[in-house]
């Protein structure tokens, strides 16, 4: 039985390796389209709703986690409308490559990760995922997971929560969902080898 399982796993991994070799071969072949290297964006259909994953803020839009959660078509439609505004807001929160003095004057009530985590201007802040959507008639609540390279060279993951409200056909930041951010995340590899993160406070409790 154990032997059979090992043989099965071996075949699975061999298939994956063959796919990898085939894929890399395709990628590096001379007939390969430049679109395999250059991302110009695409339209993603989720639950029958179209999402424009296109510039500006292409990477922030890619970070929208829309498939891992139970969202109705009406919820997805709201997120689709809010996507450009949330992506622009996320980009402003990252504040990479721009002198803070040149940043547009933002709402004073928005928490700054750079201030909370005391990150200097050289620290490159990235977005990992935007998720945990909670949609009501008037507002959209969600989390943004950020990450950056810490002083020891390891990635540090950090989560904060946001509430957006619709205002004259625009979606704008209204408030934070909770008085305190979830803060630093503890990440571990799951049985499939992927990194799964939970707030450090919750990880300590378990």
């Amino acid at each position, binding site marked *: 039985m154990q032997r059979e399982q090992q043989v099965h796993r071996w075949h699975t991994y061999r298939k*994956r390796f063959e796919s990898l070799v085939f894929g890399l071969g395709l990628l590096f072949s001379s007939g390969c389209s430049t679109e395999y290297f250059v991302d110009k964006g695409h339209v993603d259909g989720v639950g029958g709703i179209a999402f424009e*994953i296109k510039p500006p803020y292409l990477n922030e839009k890619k970070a929208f*986690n829309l498939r891992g959660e139970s969202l109705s078509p009406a919820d997805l439609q709201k997120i689709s409308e809010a996507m450009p505004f949330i992506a622009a807001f996320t980009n402003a929160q990252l504040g990479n490559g721009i002198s803070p003095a040149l940043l547009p004057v933002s709402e004073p009530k928005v928490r700054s990760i750079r201030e909370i985590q005391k990150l200097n201007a050289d620290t490159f802040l990235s977005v990992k995922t935007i998720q945990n959507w909670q949609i009501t008639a008037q507002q959209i609540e969600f989390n943004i997971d950020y990450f950056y390279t810490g002083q020891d060279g390891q990635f540090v993951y950090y989560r904060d929560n946001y509430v957006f409200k619709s205002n004259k056909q625009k979606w704008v930041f209204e408030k934070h969902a909770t008085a305190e951010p979830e803060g630093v995340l503890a990440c571990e590899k799951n049985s499939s080898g992927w990194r799964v993160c939970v707030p450090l406070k919750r990880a300590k409790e378990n």
Partner: protein
Amino acid sequence: MQECNIELTRQVQGGGFWDFLKFDSGTTNGAREDGNALGAGCGTAKSDAYVPDMLFGIDVSQACFQHDQSYSTCGFSRLTADTNLSNNILKDCNAQGGNALTCNVIAGVYSVSVSLFGASAFKQAQAQSCN
């Protein structure tokens, strides 16, 4: 009677060896398993299914995604972005328990790939972000 759980099975069967053979793009049926949109890791939306986010059991998706975001930051140096990618993979690989040889091989593969094929992606991303 002894209970048999996954962790025990992995210990008996030597999960480390099997983990070493893991290559995974993180996509299934044209969608990313983490729920994000295609291209939010290693590769673009078109090549996401072919470019591994996991090599030898090491998850490099975050290093790749940070590299993409560096390219998309107006004025960011390509050399710095590519150097950061290599350093981040090395550090993240070590943190995930990869040995020195494995980590250097993975970092080398991705470094060479972005050096050879990253120019057009960098140019495009800069044009998009600086406009």
